[in-house]
């Protein structure tokens, strides 16, 4: 049986992700001019969030946003695992479990940010 994460767990994972990002001064410098809206959508439960990157700082809000630059789509468990740092986005992205809609430059950059937070 497939394990489902709850909306609250996804919210918590995204909060952990955003907190870790915002504690990383180097990442804030690296992304100081990368203003992006990233929507995170679960496919198996009702769960929508928006990460907003502005002037190098990330904030999180519940719900979707119009005209996002990136949309991250996966099942709830994979989303929670990625944003808690339990798995990297690379494998689910390559096997199609994780879909990211947006420009390739933005996708690779989001992957890089995740690796800088959770990498080895």
């Amino acid at each position, binding site marked *: 049986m497939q394990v489902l994460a709850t909306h609250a767990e996804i919210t918590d994972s995204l909060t952990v992700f955003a907190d870790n990002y915002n504690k990383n001064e180097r990442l804030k*410098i*690296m*992304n*100081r*001019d*990368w203003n992006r809206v990233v929507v995170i959508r679960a496919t198996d439960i009702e769960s929508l969030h928006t990460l907003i990157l502005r002037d190098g700082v990330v904030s999180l809000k519940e719900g979707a946003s119009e005209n996002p630059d990136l949309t991250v789509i996966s099942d709830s468990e994979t989303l929670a695992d990625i944003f808690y740092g339990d798995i*990297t986005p*690379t*494998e689910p*992205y*390559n096997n199609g479990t994780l879909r990211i809609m947006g420009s*390739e*430059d933005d*996708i*690779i*950059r989001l*992957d*890089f940010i995740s*690796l*800088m937070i959770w*990498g*080895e």
Partner: protein
Amino acid sequence: MKHVVSVSLGSSRRDHRVQVELLGEKFEISRMGTDGDFNRALEVLRNLDGKVDAIGLGGIDVYLFVRQKRYAVHDGLKLMEAVKITPVVDGSGLKNTLEREVVQILSEKTDLLKKGMKVLMVSSLDRFGMAEALFDMGCDMTYGDLIFTMGMPYPIKTINELEEIADRTLPELVKMPFHMLYPTGKKQESQDEAKVQKFANYYYEADVIAGDFHLIRRFMPAGMNGQTILTNTTTREDVEFLREKGAGTLVTTTPEFEGRSFGTNVIEAAMVAILGKPLEQITPEDYQDLLRRLDFQPRILNLRS
């Protein structure tokens, strides 16, 4: 005659064929570009397997060396594994040896590289040997991997930070589709205008621009003021491109045959054919020894004459 073929994910416009003599032995060296078509590259490699003396893989790195660590680019490995009989190399073994030596030669025998000079490496993780040699000789380095690959206005200034970021990210990034990390096929023939404009100052402020030519070309602004370009593979058209942009001197790390310098993958493949040893038995010392016997010298071309 020995036959060496470079199969490249790059543009077929750069295809060519030359005959050269190395240590008294005749070689036919050719290049086959596949315009970024990964499946076509696989097909070409399978067709050549067992029919030529050595194959070089161009337009893609298979192995990235960062000090003692080696990271394998998954797409590159897939290409390499398509070849079962003929030795196949990507140039990374030679790059790590040859490009360190070229830095030493330029600093000892020319005025083109001096301690304190500002050097922009548009990408350095594909040629860590050069990156480290330039840092060790005291150049004021800007490693542009994050600037040009990620679009981040973040110059890496030390070899230690470069290594630290590589350790965190490369184990996963090498699993991504290669075209997301490096321009392949037609992209190699165009410039990324947004990044050219946004990051032009990194080029203008440098005394030397070093690294992979496709990347140097992709992001080079007009109005350069005589900088030295330290790279590997260039054609006559590339030389004209650099002249038009205002570069001052071109240094290529690999020798020139019939008006163009070849990629390290081609030279490494030729060296493997000369050595005649199984790949796994070839050491950096073998390459160093052979480089001395071949007496390869960097090619230095004044672009303003």
